[in-house]
């Protein structure tokens, strides 16, 4: 399959060409080239997705395809259906982000386009890769591109150290991953995921080394996935980054971290740590639950719209983690469907925020009170996005949500639907509240529970077209709503998840060139419980959101109590990189320690 490398190489080459000649070319050329090559990648990723329905496509770089059963000396990619689908999602969002920023940036615009393309290509390469060090390289490439996209055009008014905090946190996360890779290499002498997994399983040693490697790699990727207590950088980075970049950050970059945890677990550790599934599940579930709850609570206390959406992303990342942590194909398929709907809906919301910033030079909910009435298309996109995230019956994030809920309930985790509902209601209610204030002018222009934030300077404009920007936001929002109605997507995601989680078949295809056994065919069942939960989240989000615009009129003791409860949380999110790294180390110690203890007992 020669198209596999082109999905990534063509955008990378184009990015270099744009950087090479962009200085002397009109902006339109860079924009057009970027859109064209992203369109090409999008088409190729679609072809890959179609061809992976019944097989796993392997590709060996440098022509180093090993003979069946012999040692892989080169770098191999193994494209499965979830990976191809993820790459397709990345290219879709990249296309939207490029179209949105069409003619909106001024200076050095060509470098912005080139770096955005590199960022997208790096994420696509990461999810397709089947080699652990190659994953690290693409991880770093996406990080470096992301750091500069965050800081680009950030001016004094905007909190610039957000980009610095983001860069340091993620770089440290990468070191954790690399240390884990080194440990695995020392034990197995291999870098191919399938080969490492097979060797570890055959050795059957689940000692401190395997535990530490698993813990370090997982924690390193959790930094990218923005799970508590590794999440601090996320809100800072989102507050600083331009809106189209936020679309990619929230829609796919955070999810890349989740994807990586799942990929590494099922290709490498599933065999050797199989008997410890239950304690591993509990640790990861714990991380997910804390993240989901904290994200939802913090979203309710933000007035800076992009920070609000960032905390909503943290809440959803917690829900994704809960789904992955169940360690079953059904829940993982649910997470995949959930991620798709979330990516489109959240992308639409960020673009609406960008439109507000362009039009009014402001993204503060209270200062914008009522001014959004001038932007009806944005208003529709905003509320459609909020509706998609509220997980209403058979729309938006519903299918993914329902799959996770149902799987958890059958496994005896009755409280998982409750946590998911809390996270959904909390984060969506905040979006509804902000939307009501900004676009409908509802409620009071004053709120005792919202944190004070530094403002944000509007991006430099050339001939930005508000019409085009709003249209893209609307298309994304409707796509986010629509994928929930398409239950075929959810069932295919579950089928794909069966292949994804089948370590033995994966290794057989990659190392021995065997054929992939077809996944069991799935059919969609809408359960009564999932519809009931969907109604709860929908009504809850709307009701809490509508009530929140009147928080100024809550009884004084109640607001004071709520404010007192929020104060320590605000204090913890200090914006100081030293604090963030301290939390990162503590998180690695606790999560890693718990994983290690559950794998091989007390030290």
């Amino acid at each position, binding site marked *: 399959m020669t198209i596999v490398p082109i999905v990534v190489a063509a955008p990378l080459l184009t990015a270099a060409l744009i950087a090479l000649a962009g200085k002397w070319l009109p902006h339109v050329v860079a924009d057009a080239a970027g859109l064209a090559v992203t369109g090409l990648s999008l088409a190729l990723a679609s072809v890959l997705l179609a061809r992976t329905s019944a097989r796993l496509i392997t590709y060996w770089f440098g022509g180093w395809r090993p003979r069946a059963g012999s040692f892989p000396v080169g770098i191999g990619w193994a494209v499965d259906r979830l990976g191809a689908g993820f790459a397709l999602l990345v290219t879709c969002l990249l296309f939207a982000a490029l179209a949105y920023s069409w003619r909106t940036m001024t200076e050095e615009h060509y470098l912005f386009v080139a770096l955005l393309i590199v960022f997208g290509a790096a994420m696509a390469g990461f999810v397709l890769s089947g080699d652990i*060090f190659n994953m690290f*390289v693409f991880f*770093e490439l996406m990080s*470096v591109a992301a*750091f*500069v996209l965050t*800081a680009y055009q*950030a*001016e*004094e008014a905007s*909190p*610039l*150290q*957000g*980009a*610095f905090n983001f*860069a*340091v946190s993620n*770089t*440290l996360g990468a*070191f954790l991953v*690399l*240390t884990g890779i*080194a440990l695995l*290499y*020392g034990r197995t002498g291999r*870098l191919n995921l399938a080969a490492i997994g097979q060797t570890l399983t055959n050795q059957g040693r689940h000692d401190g080394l395997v535990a530490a490697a698993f813990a370090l790699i997982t924690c390193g990727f959790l930094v990218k996935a923005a799970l508590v207590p590794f999440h601090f950088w996320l*809100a*800072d980075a989102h*507050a600083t980054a331009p809106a189209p970049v936020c679309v990619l950050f929230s829609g796919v970059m955070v999810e890349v971290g989740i994807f990586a945890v799942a990929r590494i677990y099922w290709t490498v550790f599933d065999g050797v740590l199989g008997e410890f599934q239950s304690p591993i599940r509990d640790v990861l579930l714990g991380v997910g639950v804390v993240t989901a709850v904290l994200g939802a609570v*913090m979203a309710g*206390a*933000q007035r800076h719209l992009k*920070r609000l959406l960032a905390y909503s992303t943290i809440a959803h990342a917690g829900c994704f983690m809960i789904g992955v942590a169940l360690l079953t194909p059904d829940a993982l398929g649910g997470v995949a469907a959930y991620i798709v709907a979330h990516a489109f809906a959240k992308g639409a919301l960020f673009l609406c925020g960008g439109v507000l910033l362009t039009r009014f030079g402001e993204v503060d909910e209270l200062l914008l009170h009522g001014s959004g009435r001038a932007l009806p298309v944005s208003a529709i996109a905003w509320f459609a996005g909020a509706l998609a995230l509220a997980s209403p019956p058979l729309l938006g994030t519903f299918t993914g949500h329902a799959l996770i809920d149902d799987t958890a309930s059958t496994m005896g985790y009755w409280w998982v639907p409750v946590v998911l509902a809390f996270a959904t209601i909390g984060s969506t209610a905040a979006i509804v509240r902000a939307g009501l204030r900004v676009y409908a002018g509802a409620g009071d222009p004053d709120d005792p529970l919202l*944190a*004070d*934030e*530094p403002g944000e300077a509007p991006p430099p404009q050339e001939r930005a077209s508000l019409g085009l920007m709003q249209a893209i936001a609307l298309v994304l929002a409707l796509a986010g709503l629509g994928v929930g109605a398409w239950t075929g997507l959810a069932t295919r995601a579950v089928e794909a998840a069966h292949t994804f989680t089948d370590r033995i078949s994966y290794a057989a295809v990659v190392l021995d060139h065997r054929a992939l056994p077809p996944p069991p065919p799935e059919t969609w069942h809408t359960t009564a419980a999932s519809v009931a939960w969907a109604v709860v989240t929908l009504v809850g989000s709307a009701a809490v959101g509508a009530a929140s615009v009147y928080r100024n009129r809550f009884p004084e003791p109640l607001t004071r109590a709520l404010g007192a409860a*929020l104060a320590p*949380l*605000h204090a913890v*999110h*200090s*914006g*100081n*990189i*030293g604090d963030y*790294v*301290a939390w990162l*180390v503590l998180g690695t110690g606790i999560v890693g320690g718990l994983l290690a203890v559950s794998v091989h007992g007390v030290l």
Partner: protein
Amino acid sequence: MTILPYLLAVWIFLVGLVGIVTSRNLIHLTVCVSICQSATYILLLAIGYKSHGTAPVFADIPTSRKVVDPVVQSLTLTDIVVAVAVSALLLALALKVFEAEGSLDPAEIAELKG
């Protein structure tokens, strides 16, 4: 004794972390990040070392000679390039923060809250 080089890597990593958390200057902090990263070079090279092995360059030695692992060395080379690239970028970000805030002390410039 036989794990001493690995412990050296752990030591360097932890020392770097201490430096990052206690740092009062973003440039100082960036250098501490590089220290952390140098721990990964040492770990990789120590893992691939063979007693009495020579460097994997067969210019003057027969190919049958016992050599240390060339793969970890190649990984370390990549790692070094990444380190320099990230450091240069972090310093540029630090300068930009300085430009905006007039200070390099993370405690002074921490404006982001909640």
